[in-house]
């Protein structure tokens, strides 16, 4: 059994309150995020991606009017310690927020 647990002042009003952070509960870490503009490409490079086992990439619409538009998000790939968002004819027509998780 190993990991890290930190304690916090108990919030007495919350039943079953879990005081503090523990790596027993945590499974994924946030590496970073970036925005790829509509019609453009962007990327994130982080050395941490070289030392993790798994990477998850989550994409969502950002700064995009959800009103009547045919909104295609960017395609994303990871090569080594870089995550890249690219656009094409049917991708990246709106700004895309890319969140990178790893563990």
């Amino acid at each position, binding site marked *: 059994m*190993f990991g890290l647990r930190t304690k916090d002042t108990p919030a007495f009003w919350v039943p079953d309150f879990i005081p*503090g952070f523990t790596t027993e509960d945590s499974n994924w870490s946030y590496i970073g995020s970036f*925005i790829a503009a509509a019609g453009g490409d962007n990327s994130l490079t982080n050395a941490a991606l070289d030392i993790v086992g798994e990477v998850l990439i989550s994409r969502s619409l950002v700064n995009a009017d959800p009103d009547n538009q045919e909104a295609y998000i960017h395609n994303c790939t990871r090569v080594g310690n870089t995550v890249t968002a690219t656009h094409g004819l049917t991708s990246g027509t709106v700004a895309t927020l890319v969140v990178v998780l790893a563990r």
Partner: protein
Amino acid sequence: MHGITVKNTAGHLLISSEFEALHSIGRCSINLDGPPYPSNYLTSFPGYGGSLNGRNWHRYSIGTGDQVPVFFILPRSSSRFFSFLNIFQGPPRYPGQPAVWHLDVLVSGGGTLHNTPIVYAFAPRSSLPEAVPPTYRGPPDYGFFYNNMGLQTKMADGRVAFDSRMHPLAITDTISVTPPMYPCNGGVPAVGGGYYGWNDTTLDFDFNCTNTYTQTALTTTIPRKYLMFSVPSIQQAVYQRTKLGHKTSYTPWYEGGGQQEHYSNATWWCMYRGAFRLRQGILDAGWNQLWAGYHFSSLVTDNFWFSGGDQRMETGTQPYAPKTINLQPSTVMFADARNYMDGMQESYYAVDL
């Protein structure tokens, strides 16, 4: 090489001086800048009526500066679908304050403001304004104090990577889910498909999306009432039902004879966004209705020349030809809301579900 690395029993890297953990900013305020009136709820086809299972549109806000926060929803209903519609940055509320980020959330079942979820926001410690103190957790008679104990790690450039006082986000689980291809309960509506009676405006298709979802079993041990999730609603769809109407009428010979052709076009359309519902031990990936519209036109021709009788109505503009786009898996992140509740009131929000 220096710094800190913490792994859990499974060997997953969880804290490192190589990257910044997310920390709690707090609970977002709802509708502070007003709902996007008049479209904050949808219950029927505008200009036509009928009924849709509908949606409510809520706007949440929090000030965090330029860093895009990560939002988590704590649902207060196990029957509603939620969509993370859009994240966007607005100006500060007051000069000198950090920029405000907004999250627009759709909640299925329009017409009421009930079942609004609680939304928490997280961002790297270095992006938080210094004015944001560690969340106060003590009982009221302790007075207002800041906790000076805990663990803090820094990156090589001095940025704080992890600060236990700021309630770092523990992502407990992730799953990947995709809604079904077609959002409508009725499947794929026909566009045209032969002629109906002239001026036939009876909707014969079920545009609701209450039965179209995929189910994924969850393995988490967090009680449902404290389980919060974050998932982008990237999937979009538009579907359309069109009924073409026609009849021929004849003028009696004693009135001069001749014939007239009568044509009509009744079209209903609905736009959808990916949506997610959290039940006990199950996450459903389905759809929410975003917009709907109705078009009707009718005309009479006399020997193929227009001769009056024209009627036309249009509510909204159909966004694009019927199809589903961005039908790709969405990553769902889960966390335990108990770690981030910052007020007594919230224990009442987290009702048994």
